[in-house]
Every structure is written in structure tokens, then in C-alpha cells.
């Protein structure tokens, strides 16, 4: 199965019979803007980490098309389970820079109210969110709600038992869930060939999922396929799977040293397939974006970066004693006692 592509790397449109998409200038400009903003934000966060303002950052650089193309294909009522690198998707859902950064600064374990954005908190234990998504979709199914659920994960995570249990369970239970794998070729230093013998979408089909593979650096293809698959899902045609072939241009995280395990030529070949450059070539060729648009986007990017930088330094840090309050919904004497003892202990130094 060839990955679905609607826009080639030279910026030429390649309509696909199975995956129609009404490619309007407005749509393309919107995607371009969202991807530019995501990349700018990601770059700023990376810089903030290098300057000691964040403890860690995991870049989404290079995966903007996979995320923007997919999340914008869902309805805002559809609940999304991200992994931990879905900053571009999160921004599309309206999550703010402050909400996105606070976890990586180390002030909190998560930054936003998942109900508000219909976007779950990040899950760092690989694949653990996939059974959650399956269960959530069981709930949607029981509610008879007109919603579908989207779950992101990586190529590496697909080797975990939890991922495969979820593929199987979701298929068997026939729940309205769309698994979306960003196959970015690497799990830290481990290449996809170490993780698996057969392509992931083939495995997914084996479980009985409606599985597809798409050029993950082609935002139009990602959007078209995700929209189409979500529609089928909504029509009750059973759970689905999309494998988006993309690439993690940066290191795994700010702690990584990718030079140890991958070649420059591989990196270069993927840079040539960059999702933003490609869409820009389309906009340029078609004359769909004028100078004003570009100026506006540049300006928005600058503002976003500035915002990210300024909110980051002011991110609130609650008092440590708050840690005791979020463990259980119903208070326990153990935690109440420890909280009290902690405060007394701190007080004893203030005297």
C-alpha cells in the first residue's frame, strides 16, 4: 500500500480518487499558518529549555502536518488522547502556550483542563493512553453520542502490549476510535526496523481495523484521509487506524544526542520533504498567499514566541502543600497529617 499523497514535495497537487479534498486557498493558508505557528512555538520552547527556563522539551519539529492535518479533521467535540509530542495539535485545539509549557518547566504534571479543550493531558508512559481511549470510546458508544475519539501514539509505542491490546479490544468492541500513529521513524535511538517486521498499517488491518497509510508530511493528504476515515467511523463502520509517515527532525528531546545514531544524509532527505516548505511551494505556485498574508503570519509567529517567552517565566508555582490535596478526591487522615506536619516543619525554620 502506497502512502496517500495529495501534495508532492515540489508543491504540486496530486488529487487522489479515493480521498477527495476541496483544496481551497483558504484551507491551505489556514494549514500553513497553523504549522508555522506550531513550529515557531516549538522552536521558542526549545530555546527556553536551552536557557534553563524549561527542564525538558520534546520537539514536534517536522511533524506539524501530521498533527495539524489530523486534529483539524475532527470535530471540536471529539475527544483527543495525545501522547506527549502533540504540541501542534494542542495549539489547534486552543491550548495556550502557558498551559503547554508549565509541565515542562516542572511546575505541574499537566497544564490544561482536558474537558475544556476535549484534549486529554499528555501521557508519558508509552501506549498507556490507548486503552484509555478505547474505554472512553466505549463510553461514547454507550452514550449513543455523535462523537469519535482520536488517539495519538508513536512508532515505538506500538511495540508495547498496551498498544496491541487496545487495537484488538477496540476492534472487537467496535468502538468509535481512530488510532493515529505518527511514525517518525525513530523511538529515541531505535529505528522502526528494530520495532517491527511489517508496516504498522498492515498490522492494524490484521486486527480488523480500517487501516490506512498516509504521507505524514503532506498536510492535505493527512487531512483528507483523517476526514474520510472519521466520517466512516461516524457512520458506524468500525474503528480505524492511520499511519502517518513523518520524521522527527530534532532529537528525541533536549536530552538526546541524535548524532550518535542517525546520519546527516537521512536527516537531509527528510528535510527536503518538510511539510511547511512543501505547502509554501503550493501557495507560491498558485499565488494563493500574498505578501500581506506572509507578513501577518510572520507577525503572529513573533507574537506567539514573545508570549511563550514571557508567560514561561511567570508560570505560577503553587505551594508544595498543594501536592497533598490532589492525590485523593476524599481526604485521608494520612495525607492531612503529612500536610500538617510538612507545614509545621517549614514553620519551624521560620522562627
Amino acid at each position, binding site marked *: 500500500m502506497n502512502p496517500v499523497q495529495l501534495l508532492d514535495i515540489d508543491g504540486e497537487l496530486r488529487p487522489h480518487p479515493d480521498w477527495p479534498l476541496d483544496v481551497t486557498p483558504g484551507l491551505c493558508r489556514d494549514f500553513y499558518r497553523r504549522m508555522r505557528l506550531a513550529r515557531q512555538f516549538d522552536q521558542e520552547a526549545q530555546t527556553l529549555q536551552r536557557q534553563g527556563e524549561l527542564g525538558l522539551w520534546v520537539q514536534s519539529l517536522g511533524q506539524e502536518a501530521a498533527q495539524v492535518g489530523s486534529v483539524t479533521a475532527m470535530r471540536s467535540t471529539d475527544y483527543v488522547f495525545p501522547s506527549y509530542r502533540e504540541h501542534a495539535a494542542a495549539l489547534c485545539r486552543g491550548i495556550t502556550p502557558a498551559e503547554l509549557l508549565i509541565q515542562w518547566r516542572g511546575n505541574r504534571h499537566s497544564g490544561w483542563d482536558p474537558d475544556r479543550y476535549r484534549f486529554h*493531558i499528555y501521557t508519558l508512559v508509552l501506549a498507556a493512553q490507548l486503552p484509555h481511549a*478505547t474505554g472512553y470510546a466505549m463510553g461514547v458508544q454507550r*452514550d449513543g453520542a455523535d462523537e469519535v475519539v482520536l488517539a495519538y501514539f508513536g512508532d515505538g509505542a506500538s511495540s508495547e502490549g498496551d498498544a496491541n491490546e487496545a487495537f484488538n*479490544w477496540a476492534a472487537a468492541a467496535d468502538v468509535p476510535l481512530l488510532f493515529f500513529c505518527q511514525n517518525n521513524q525513530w523511538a529515541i535511538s531505535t529505528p522502526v526496523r528494530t520495532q517491527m517486521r511489517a508496516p504498522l498499517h498492515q498490522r492494524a488491518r490484521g486486527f480488523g481495523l480500517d487501516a490506512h497509510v498516509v504521507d505524514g508530511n503532506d498536510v492535505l493528504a493527512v487531512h483528507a484521509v483523517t476526514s474520510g476515515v472519521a466520517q466512516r467511523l461516524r457512520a458506524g463502520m468500525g474503528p480505524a487506524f492511520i499511519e502517518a509517515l513523518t520524521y522527527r527532525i530534532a532529537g528525541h528531546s533536549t536530552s538526546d544526542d541524535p548524532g550518535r545514531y542517525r546520519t546527516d544524509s537521512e536527516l537531509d532527505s527528510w528535510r527536503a520533504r518538510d511539510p511547511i516548505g512543501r505547502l509554501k511551494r503550493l501557495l507560491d505556485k498558485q499565488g494563493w498567499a500574498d505578501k500581506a498574508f506572509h507578513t501577518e503570519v510572520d507577525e503572529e509567529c513573533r507574537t506567539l514566541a514573545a508570549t511563550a517567552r514571557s508567560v514561561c517565566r511567570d508560570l505560577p508555582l503553587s505551594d508544595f502543600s498543594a501536592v497533598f490535596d490532589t492525590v485523593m478526591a*476524599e481526604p*485521608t487522615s*494520612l495525607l492531612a497529617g503529612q500536610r500538617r506536619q510538612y507545614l509545621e516543619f517549614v514553620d519551624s525554620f521560620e522562627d
Partner: protein
Amino acid sequence: MPVLTLSNAINTGLRRVLEDHPKSIVMGQDVGSLGGVFRVTNGLQKDFGTDRVIDTPLAESSIVGTAIGLALRGYRPVCEIQFDGFVYPAFNQIVSQLAKIRARSDGRLCLPVVIRIPVGGGIGAVEHHSESNEAYFTHTAGLRVVCCSNPLDGHWMLRQAASGSDPVIFYEPKRRYWDKAEVSESAGTERVLPLHKARIVRAGSDLTLLTYGGMVQTCLQAAEAAVEDGRSIEVIDIRSLSPLDLETITASVEKTGRCVVVHEAPVFGGFGAEIGSAVTERVFYRLLAPVLRVGGFDTPYPPAKFEDQYLPDLDRVLDAVDRSFAW
């Protein structure tokens, strides 16, 4: 008041939960038409339908994982793990997700999920079917861990657990499933304690026996037997392991000055260690002997023919009582 077995008492508890909470769900392996391997869920699927009483695929990690997802969607799942020894595939979901999601979400998300686990030995089962693994969960912040010992508690504790807002590991001592007692299904009786409270099963003045689950009966028998030696033994059914009702426990040991903890699990690093340390910290000067621990030996649970030697019995409990008095 009807006389019910523990198994039936929990069954009627589950029934009430399904009636009282429209969003509650019972799920697990073989809980549907079979009614569970111990028949605890007998008849529930017939009466509440397959949407609310779910036979799941054979995947413990996903039983807990999907229960979390259902809870995020507003449901209240009560999961069954078929046997104690099969909860380990779900350990990651329990420890990193179920227990932590509230803290990880800064208190925004709440997971009212109950995980029922038939626990312990005494029924001559094959390997992996007789384990006592409560210490793994009591050491896990974010979980409540409770263990019933009789039909009345089984019924009420299940209803309380399933009506709360926090995840609960709910242990059912499988050797007691067939024990019978009167169970009042209506609230308000003074015999029904809050979920986190320990229960003084037998009052006494010379030594406190602290225990839970399948060992409560054993300790009661030991206390009766000790009467002959002129010893008045107080027996406390801890019921809630986490949080632990140290108030009730401490008051008792303050009074008696001697304490023996009894559980089926191996002693080394077992829950008795926590009780021993916590009690000692609180009533140090009142203790006439160290808190002694009686439990399984520090080996994997042995073949069925060795259960009687492996599990604490009357003699081993009394031996510890003797040692405490002889200190």
C-alpha cells in the same frame, strides 16, 4: 434480614450499585453469562444487559485501562480481576495511571473505579490463584485498599467503594466466599462502618490481634482459644488497609500493650511491616513486647498440599501470642 454468603452479599451489593448509579458498569473476564468464576456477578448481565455488565477480552491491562477511559467519560466501572495472581499484567495501568491520574491532572480528573480481586489461599487452588499482594497497592499513593472479611462488610464496603470518588482496590478473601451471615441491605444500621474504619471484632484487654480478610476468622478462633490460658485478646479487623485507621488501632494497643499482626502474605516487606512500624512509632512506651508478625513464609505460594503449613493458622497465631507474653 436475609442470610447470605459473602459471594451473594457482594452480588447484591453490585446489584444495588447498578441500580443506584445509572453510570455504573460491571466488567471483567467471564462476569456475564457465567456470572464470574466465583459467581459473584451471577445474574447481573441478565438483569442489566450487556452494555452495563461486560464480558471483556482476556487482557487485564486493558480491563483497568478501559475502565479508566470509561471513568474519564463519566462512568463508574467496577472491574473484576479473576484471581489475585492475574492482576500483575494490569500493574502499570493501576500504579501509573489509575492511582496517579488525579495527581497528574492536578486534581481535575477523578477516577471512581473499583477493582475487585478475589484474594488469598485456603481453597486448594493451583499456582497464581492464592496470592496476597496487598502490600504492592498499599504502598501506592492514590489508591484506597480495602479487604472485607464477612458478608455484611462485603455488601456494604462494596457499595461504599463503588459510590466514592477515588480508585479502590477491593479485596475479597476467596476462602470466605461461602461463609454465611445476616446482611441488612438497608442503610443506617449501626453495624455499618464508614469504609475507612477498622472494626473491633472482639474486645479484649491483654493483647491486640490486628488482621484482615481471610485471617479474621483464624484470629477470632485464636482469641477464643487463648481464653483458656486466661488471656483476653482484642481482635481488630482492619478492613481498610489504606488509609489505615490508626486511631482505632492505636487506642487498642495503648490499652493492651501487646500487638500481633496476622496476614496471609509473606512477612518480609508485607503490610504487617507498616503496621508494626506505625504502631511502634505511636505507642512506643506502652509496648510490653515488639509488634510481632505472623504471615506466609517468604517463598512463592506453595503447592496446594502445603497450604496448611504455609498459611498462618491457630497454632502459629497462638505461638506469636505466647512469644509476645513471654517477652
